C-alpha cells in the first residue's frame, strides 16, 4: 500500500507546476515612480497529490509504562482520511467496545485486535470492518502521549464543555493550554462524560485537531518547527511511515485548514455479548462507507448521532 502513496507523490512531481500555490505580485516596470517596490512570494513543498485519498489508522494502546505498546488493548482507534485534491480530511473514531470479527480469528471487542495480532492484525481488522485500505498506521501509548505534549510545551485546545477528568483535574470550557499529563487525562476520561466512550473518542479527535492547528501555527512562525514535531513524534509513536513520506504528509497537512477537517465517531447500539457491554455497529455503517469513498465526510453529511454534543 505504500507503493500507492509513492505513486501519488510521483504524480505530484509531474503536475506540480499547476498547483497554483505560489503567488507572484511584481510591480509593473512602466511609468517608473521615484521609488518602485516589488514584492513577491514563491512556495513549493512536496505534497501528496492526486484523486486518491490517503488513509492512516491512528491507534492508542492502554499498555502500561514499560510494557510493549502492542501488548495493550487498543482504546483509541481513529481513521484519518485525507483528500489532497479537495484539501479536506476527516477523523472517524471507532468505539473500542465495537463487537466485530477480529482478523486473527473469532468475534470480540475491536480493542483486542491489537494484542492478538499486533498493528498488522489491528489494521486488517479495521480494514475488514470499514472497507478502508490503510496506507499507514501510527501507534502510541499513555507515556508517549504525555511525553509528546510535554516536549512540545503543552497543547493549545478549545475545550467545548467543562468536565472533571478521571484523576480529578477540572477542565474548564474555552481555550487553554494543557500540560502533557493533562492532555493524557483529557483523552482518557470517559466516566464523567455524558456519552461515555463516544465522547471520549470525540475528545481524542479534538486533541488531534488542536495538535494540527498548533503545528501549523508553529511551523508558520519557525521553519524548523517541522523538524521539532517530527522528532518528538518519532520518538514517541510507533509507525510504518518512512521519514520522507512523513515530510510529504506534513507539507500536505499544512495545506488542509483545520476548518476543513471533520471530527466524528461511528456510533452504534449498546448491547451485551458474553456478559460484556459492547457496541453493536450497523453493517454497513454509513460513516465508513462515506469516508472510504473519498477520504472525507462533509459536515452536513455527519449523522446526528455521530457527533454527540455532550
Amino acid at each position, binding site marked *: 500500500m505504500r507503493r500507492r502513496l509513492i505513486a501519488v507523490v510521483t504524480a505530484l512531481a509531474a503536475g506540480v507546476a499547476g498547483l497554483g500555490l505560489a503567488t*507572484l505580485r511584481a510591480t509593473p516596470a512602466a511609468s*517608473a515612480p521615484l521609488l518602485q517596490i516589488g514584492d513577491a512570494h514563491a512556495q513549493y513543498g512536496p505534497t501528496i497529490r492526486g484523486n486518491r485519498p490517503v488513509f492512516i489508522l491512528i491507534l492508542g494502546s492502554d499498555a502500561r509504562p514499560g510494557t510493549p505498546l502492542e501488548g495493550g488493548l487498543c482504546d483509541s482507534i481513529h481513521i484519518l482520511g485525507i483528500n489532497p485534491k479537495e484539501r479536506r480530511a476527516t477523523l472517524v473514531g471507532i468505539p473500542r467496545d465495537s463487537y466485530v470479527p477480529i482478523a486473527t480469528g473469532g468475534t470480540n471487542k475491536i480493542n483486542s485486535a491489537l494484542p492478538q495480532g499486533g498493528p498488522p492484525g489491528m489494521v486488517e481488522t479495521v480494514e475488514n470492518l470499514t472497507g478502508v485500505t490503510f496506507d499507514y498506521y501510527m501507534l502510541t501509548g499513555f507515556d508517549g502521549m504525555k511525553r509528546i505534549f510535554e516536549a512540545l510545551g503543552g497543547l493549545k485546545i478549545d475545550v467545548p464543555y467543562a468536565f472533571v477528568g478521571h484523576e480529578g483535574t477540572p477542565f474548564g470550557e474555552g481555550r487553554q493550554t494543557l500540560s502533557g499529563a493533562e492532555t493524557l487525562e483529557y483523552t482518557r476520561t470517559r466516566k464523567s462524560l455524558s456519552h461515555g466512550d463516544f465522547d471520549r473518542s470525540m475528545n481524542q479527535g479534538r486533541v488531534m485537531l488542536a495538535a494540527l492547528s498548533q503545528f501549523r501555527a508553529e511551523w508558520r512562525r519557525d*521553519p524548523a518547527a517541522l523538524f521539532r514535531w517530527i522528532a518528538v513524534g518519532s520518538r514517541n509513536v510507533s509507525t510504518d511511515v518512512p521519514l520522507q513520506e512523513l*515530510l510529504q504528509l506534513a507539507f500536505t497537512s499544512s495545506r488542509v485548514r483545520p476548518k476543513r477537517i471533520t471530527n466524528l465517531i461511528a456510533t452504534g447500539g449498546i448491547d451485551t455479548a458474553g456478559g460484556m457491554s459492547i457496541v453493536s455497529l450497523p453493517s454497513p455503517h454509513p460513516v465508513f462507507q462515506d469516508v472510504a469513498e473519498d477520504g472525507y465526510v462533509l459536515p452536513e453529511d455527519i449523522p446526528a448521532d455521530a457527533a454527540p454534543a455532550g
Partner: protein
Amino acid sequence: MGVGVVAVLIVGWLLLSGGDIPLVDDGPSGPSSFSFELAGNVRLSSTSQTPPAELAGAARNAGDGVKETMDELYFRAFLDTDSWGDYADAFALFDTQAAARAQADTEVLTLGSTAGETFDSVRPTSGELAISVLMDKDKPATAVAEVEFLADATRSDGGTTAIASSGSYYLRQVDGAWRVFAYDVDRDDTTAAAPSPTGSPS
C-alpha cells in the same frame, strides 16, 4: 615592512568592523563566489534518543554541506553575471521535483529572466544563514536553511535596485550533495529611478 603594516591595518579594520568575513571574492567582472554568514550554531532535532552531544559533529558537517549549497545557489541566482537569464546552474541545486517548480518561480528565486538586460552589476551587502538539521537514525536526513540576503544592483538605466530575498529552503541529500526539495521565499526589492538627465526639475 609595508606589507606588514597593510596587513595590520586590514586586521584592525576587520576587528573594528565586527570581524565580518567578506561576503564575496571579487573577480575582474564582479564577484566570483559568495559566502553567507552563519547565524549561530546549527540547530539539531533527532528522531532517536541519542544524546544531542553525540550527534553534534554530524550535524555540523551537514550544516557545512547545506551552507555550501546555499552559497552556490545565491551566487548563481543573483551574483554570477554569466548565469543571468539562464539559471540552469542554480536550479541544478534543487532536486528534480523542486527544480521543475523553481523554473516557474524564476522571478522570485533569482535576479530574474531579464537580469542581463536590466542590470550592469550586483554586489551583496549582507547574507545571513541559519541552519537546522533533522537527524534520523542518527544521520542527517533533512535540513532547513533560513536566509536573509541583501544586495545592491546597478541598473543599465543608471538607477539602483536594493535586492532583498528572505525565506526558508528545505534540503535533503541527493547522491551525497545537499539539494533543495521545498522552499518558501519572499522577495521585497526596492528600485530607485535613474537620475534625470536634465538634472533637478526645480
